[in-house]
């Protein structure tokens, strides 16, 4: 049971490959780290894995049946910039409950205060917004989470607590998590296995 990317290749400008012949596999309940330099294609790879964009070469497959229109996708992507992933004209309650209704227990685990629900996104800090993005990604249908630099806007204490809660939930529900980050110390603390985009990029050159 796994999310599998086979022979992935991607570029923005023709023939300037960000990466090519990249194989990646994420199984149920596994925590995989993806590291790499800025501009090495980490975010593009995460968007490909989450089916937001099509790779130029290769394909992504999962064992589950494809999500029907209107259903939550089994692969959920959490973005680097929460302020870009949230509709600025919705109050936070609508943002949170767009796809399902999270219970109070999970809000508490991520430290989301009730008073934030009636605010607009602009009235919350980046770290506060990111908690909403994490909770809404934990839909009951979610099988894989792609976390693209999701904790850079958090202070160290919050970062520690949020990763612990998120990974605990993912282990309970056997969700596979791909953690994309350039922070080596963080990745080595959190992940079972780490792949580096820089190394695979070099292989292409060889």
């Amino acid at each position, binding site marked *: 049971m796994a999310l599998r990317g086979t022979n992935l290749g991607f570029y923005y400008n023709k023939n300037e490959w960000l990466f090519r012949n990249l194989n990646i596999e994420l199984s149920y309940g596994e925590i995989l780290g993806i590291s790499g330099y800025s501009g090495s294609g980490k*975010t593009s790879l995460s968007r490909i894995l989450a089916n937001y964009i099509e790779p130029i070469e290769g394909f992504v497959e999962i064992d589950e049946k494809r999500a029907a229109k209107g259903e939550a996708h089994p692969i959920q992507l959490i973005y680097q910039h929460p302020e870009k992933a949230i509709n600025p004209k919705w109050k936070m309650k609508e943002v949170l409950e767009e796809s399902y209704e999270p219970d109070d227990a999970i809000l508490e685990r991520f430290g989301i205060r009730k008073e934030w629900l009636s605010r607009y996104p602009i009235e919350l800090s980046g770290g506060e917004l990111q908690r909403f993005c994490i909770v809404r990604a934990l839909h009951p249908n979610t099988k894989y989470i792609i976390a693209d630099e999701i904790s*850079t806007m958090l202070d160290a204490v919050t*970062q520690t*607590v949020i990763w612990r809660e998120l990974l605990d939930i993912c282990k309970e529900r056997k969700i596979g998590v791909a953690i994309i980050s350039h922070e080596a110390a963080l990745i080595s*603390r959190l992940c079972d296995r780490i792949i580096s985009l820089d190394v695979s990029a070099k292989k292409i050159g060889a």
Partner: protein
Amino acid sequence: MKESKQILSVENLKICFTQYVKGLKTRRITPIESLNVSINAGEIMAVIGASGSGKSLLAHAILGILPGNALCEGDITYCGQPLTEEKKIELRGKEISFIPQSVNYLDPLMRVSEQVKIGLPKKDADKQQKELFHRYGLKEKDGELYPFQLSGGMLRRVLFATSIRDNIKLVIADEPTPGIHPEALSTILNQLRAFADDGAAVMLITHDIVSALTVCDRVTVLKDGKTIETTMAENFSADGRHLQHWYSRALWNALPQNSFSVHEEVEAWL
């Protein structure tokens, strides 16, 4: 010895927002209650604290770019003079330089090279912009791209390049480093150090304590809109026993480089 001339001093800063609840009924929230921070010439002051503790608001208050429903009290002094709203407008972008937190501050419809040229002297704007790109490891042809075509880390470097001007006396960097790989990171930190060594005062707002410590002189810790501690950078070492406040110690110990753990008492507060 470094010069000790005070460039910026913020005393008892209080910021509150008026919100409309229903119809004409309003309510007030006070995210910043009492902030104190002062920075001398030639000094880098790191400002750290929980997310939502008012770090960005502090920066925006100094620059005079708070939203219209904000009310700001307290004394902000710049080079010995009160920093009034008119002064802020006059000085920002000239003597006071700002590196915003969100890459959303870039114009999505403008090529990034053009955005870096804003405010540079017309004559050699082209040349300076190319030099800046080179210094921060951006390719010349990246300048032709629009913000959506660049990665998060590259956008950071573009934002940083927009802040480099002559005659800067005060630099306010609001989390300039997330998403940047180690080499570009040290370029940026060294640039901040160079600002300070040239006599500017630098406020480095950040979560990345470890990187900040490599260049900063002092650290101010914020929590719930209050200054809880200002301390020398070297006190952030070992198990943090030289730090006064328990929250400063908690921040330090929670780093993945340190014990990556949070005490139960700290969590009760969360």
